[in-house]
């Protein structure tokens, strides 16, 4: 089964979770995980399908397979570096980015969950289709 990009169930779940967090969870809990780390946890499962969709749209992705190893690892490394080292150190965006090593952990954890999900979901569908 081809990767569904913006109709991928994990992407849709992460998008819904982002809005639920923003509109509900943050009002229920005044501080803690939902304020500091939930967005980091869903960052890669949310943004990678968008990134791959854009690549596919401009025909720079030649297939519709679920995200490959490099398509998960490269964003993980680049985004961790940009958001947790480069922007906090340079203050290029007015000092609104703060380094937090826990964010890197949650980026990696979110990527791991995404990789497991995509392997299971699209692997299962491929088996069903046979």
């Amino acid at each position, binding site marked *: 089964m081809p990767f569904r990009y913006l109709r991928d169930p994990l992407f849709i779940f992460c998008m819904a979770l*982002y809005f639920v967090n923003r509109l509900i969870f943050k009002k229920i809990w005044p501080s803690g995980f939902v*304020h*500091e780390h939930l*967005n*980091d946890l869903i*960052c890669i499962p*949310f*943004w990678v399908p*968008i*990134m791959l969709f*854009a*690549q596919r749209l401009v025909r*720079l*992705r030649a297939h519709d*397979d679920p*995200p*490959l*190893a*490099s*398509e*998960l*690892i*490269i*964003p*993980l*490394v*680049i*985004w*961790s*570096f*940009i*958001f*947790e*080292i480069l*922007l*906090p*150190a340079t203050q290029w*965006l007015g000092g*609104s*980015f*703060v*380094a*937090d*090593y*826990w*964010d*890197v*952990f949650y*980026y*990696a*954890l979110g*990527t*791991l969950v995404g*990789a*497991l999900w995509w*392997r299971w979901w699209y692997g299962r569908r491929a088996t069903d289709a046979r």
Partner: protein
Amino acid sequence: MSIKDVMSRWGLRVLMCLSTSVTVSFIALVCAWQQYGRWELFPWNWNKDEKVLPTFWEFISSEDTAGIQTTCLLAGVVAFPLCLIASSAWRKSRAPFAGVLLAHVITAVFAIAAAVWMAALHLPSGH
């Protein structure tokens, strides 16, 4: 299956996983070092009259940072199976090296472009 086959099948994957783990841990560690230098987060590290950032070596050799370093190491440990799982469908590619490299460069360019969007939207909350 001979040892040579196993090595050829698993060697590159394990090497990739290790290098991903080390890279992620190192980024987390540098990030923690930067964060450690912020006196409002770690006020006990600072003589507020002389706000001197500890060197990276001082940071990693300090006993106070053992917990932080463990978390950074954990980030790398999480990245190891991620790489192993995501690369499970690897097969010997017939694409030329230049083609594979170009695909990775394209992914990197799109990742940077996405980061610009994210920074504009500020979705990975900077707290």
